[in-house]
Structure formats: structure tokens, C-alpha cells
């Protein structure tokens, strides 16, 4: 019998080591697995590399993780959202390393890591500061940059519903990075609003198939 449902956030995060690379879903606040992130702080994990789109807003979620001094490096596309005060402070002090990646390249590097692809050529960023140090190649008259996959130890995702096999649905634009990150974590950990009976999700409506998911925690929101 397959049962990926776990009883608590703490159990869901079992085995995450210091220094781990962790994918964190969400775009702004939509789809951000706040409760898992707060459990990660309680767990005491440190020296983390966080791969996510934004660098936290206000004092919760990624911002709380930064504030607790747990993040050594952040890989993201847009650390400068309104309210990302904390990241700005830490970055100015040199207390956190930033790898800035164009958003589509970030998403595709995660997909490459998930799909067993050793890299890809992309037009985004050609001739810019973000091309520095990257291989440039002409293909059929177009110029491309070589981008490498991102491999992650774990993915933390927020979804809407799950069954015990780990099939997931999402809600509105909270879907964002969820599906691609879910497929990329060596361990994929999901917080959901609601766990439903096996078979209650119409197979046509499953967005992330359970094969990508390892642990599901019913968070209730």
C-alpha cells in the first residue's frame, strides 16, 4: 500500500541536512509553503541554498528563514519585490550570496534537473551581464547561451488537494513553480489544504502525478 501522508510538518522535513539545496515553490505569496518553511526554521536547518523566485516579503516564509540566518545562498529571478526589506539588508552586508537567474531560465534549469537533461541553449540573456562566464553558441544563425541544470536535495511545495498517492491539484496562480519543482526534488514535500480519498481527484484534473511526490502534509490552508 502506498501512503505518502505524514502527520506533521516536522515528519515531512525529516532527513533534510544542513547545507542542502532546497527548491521552494511560490510566486510572491501565491503558492508559498509558509508553514513548511517555518517548520524548517524550527528544525534548525542551516547553511541552506534556497532556489525560489523571490527573496521573501515582510517577516514570514523565506524572509523568516533569512532573518533566522539559515540561508547561505539564494538562487532567484527577482529579489527586489516591494517589502523585501530583509533580503536587501542582508545582501548589503554581504551576509547572503545571490545568484540572479532570468525567470524562464530558472524554471527551465529546474526542469532540466528534473528531466535528466545536462543543460540547454537559450536566447535569454545573450549580450547581457548575466551571460558572463557562459558558453555562447550559434545554432541556425541564432545566438544562444548554455545553461546548466539545477539539482536539488528537496522541494517544498504548496498544493491545494492531494490523495495518499501524492497526486496534486493546485489553485489559480498558486500553481506557478509547483509542478516543475515537484518533479525536481530528490525528496518532494508538499503541504496541502486538503487530503482527499484515493480516486476523488479526477485523473483528467491531476496536475502533478504522485510519482513526483514523496510526502504530503495536510496543513489545512
Amino acid at each position, binding site marked *: 500500500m502506498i501512503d505518502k501522508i505524514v502527520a506533521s510538518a516536522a515528519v515531512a522535513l525529516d532527513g533534510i541536512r544542513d547545507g542542502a539545496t532546497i527548491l521552494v515553490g511560490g510566486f510572491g505569496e501565491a503558492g508559498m509553503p509558509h508553514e513548511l518553511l517555518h517548520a524548517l526554521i524550527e528544525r534548525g536547518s542551516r547553511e541552506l541554498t534556497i532556489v525560489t523566485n523571490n527573496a521573501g516579503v515582510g517577516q514570514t516564509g523565506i524572509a523568516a528563514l533569512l532573518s533566522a540566518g539559515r540561508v547561505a545562498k539564494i538562487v532567484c529571478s527577482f529579489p527586489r519585490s516591494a517589502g523585501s526589506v530583509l533580503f536587501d539588508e542582508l*545582501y548589503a552586508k554581504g551576509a547572503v550570496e545571490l545568484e540572479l537567474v532570468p525567470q524562464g531560465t530558472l524554471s527551465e534549469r529546474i526542469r532540466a534537473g528534473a528531466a535528466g537533461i545536462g543543460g540547454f541553449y537559450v536566447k535569454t540573456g545573450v549580450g547581457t551581464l548575466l551571460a558572463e562566464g557562459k558558453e555562447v553558441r550559434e545554432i541556425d544563425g541564432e545566438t544562444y547561451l548554455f545553461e546548466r541544470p539545477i539539482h536539488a536535495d528537496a522541494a517544498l511545495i504548496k498544493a491545494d488537494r492531494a490523495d495518499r498517492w501524492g497526486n496534486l491539484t493546485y489553485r489559480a496562480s498558486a500553481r506557478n513553480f509547483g509542478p516543475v519543482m515537484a518533479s525536481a526534488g530528490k525528496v518532494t514535500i508538499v503541504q496541502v489544504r486538503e487530503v482527499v480519498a484515493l480516486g476523488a481527484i479526477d485523473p483528467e484534473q491531476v496536475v502533478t502525478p504522485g510519482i513526483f511526490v514523496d510526502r504530503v502534509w495536510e496543513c489545512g490552508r
Partner: protein
Amino acid sequence: MSSDIKNRIARRVAQDLPDGAYVNLGIGLPTLVADHLPAGREIVFHSENGLLGVGPAPADDQADPDLINAGKMPITLLPGASIFHHNDAFVMIRGGHLDYALLGAFQVSAAGDLANWMTEGDTKAPAVGGAMDLAAGAREVWVLMEHTTRDGRPRILERCSFPLTAARVVKRIYTELAVIEVADGLIVREMAEGVDFARLQAVTGAPLRLGL
């Protein structure tokens, strides 16, 4: 820039979007274009966080925190809308599936180089978001911006002094003074009421040609 001027630019751009176009609106000024669509045209707005068919902002008490645009502002979905994940959103962007990307800019060069992610001597952390993907991938990039900086210096230049977002991608520039096409130099297609060519050239940092 006053909201009056911003809305005037947005209204002018909206007139040029053809029926049936798939359009990404960059954060800032371009998002206003959605408020000025001529009646009877179906334009499908794309948002990089996985939406097609974006509608106007909801009333404050109707905002859904799970339904936001690229600027993280609450939005609505129109009949015919679809929701997809980030990779598909950028397949659309990078793969040339969007007809237009409407973007704000700090600077544009006479060759169509775009600078809209980083200024000179910026000490804060850089942020790029989807700007480079949109600039590299949309079939046409149109820029909406104020013609000059706050202290009156040109934003349209022979060469951008700020770091580039992408080279040679901008096809049109809409400002409060003019509509300018980038095609082997800068061709003025339209001037706002009360603007003459000499004045326009004086606040532009690259040679203009009249092509009304």
C-alpha cells in the same frame, strides 16, 4: 510621471493592438494598457506566473491572494482564461508564441537595444524577473516610457549606458511625445498634439527621421 500622462501613453498603445493578439504586459506602465482597450477587440493578456485571459483588477473585497499578476497585484480571469505552470508560461514567452511584449524601460538605443533591469551605480541587489525572457522571446517588443528622465535627460540614446536586457529587440517606442518605430534608425510615426520635430529631436539622444 503623472498618471494622466501614463494613461495617455497606455491609451495610445491600446489602439495599435490588433484583434486576436496575445500580449504580455510588463509590470508598471504597461499594465495600464488593459484599461484602455477599444470596444469590440478580443485581446488575450498573458501573465508570466501562468495565466492567459487576465481581466481587470477586482474590487478590494473580491481579491483572491491566489490570483495575482506578475506585479503580484490581484486580478480576475475572463471567460476563456487558462491556468498553467511556470514552464509552460515561459514556453509561450521564449518560444515566440506571444505576439507582443509591452515593457517599460530606462533606456532604448537607436538600434533597439533595451535597458530595463538595472541602472548605473545601483547598490541594491539586481532583479531581472522575466524581462530578459520576454525581450528575447516575444515576436515584437514595444516599449512604453516617459520620453526623458526626471531631470530632463533623454532615454532614447545612440547607445544605452545602463546594462542591457537584450540587444536589438525593440520595434516601437511609445512616449508622451511621440510614437517611434525602430527600423534601421528611429522613424517618427506620430507626434503628440503641440509637439514639433525640432523639440522632439532636442530631447532625444539619437537622430530621428520623420516618417509620418
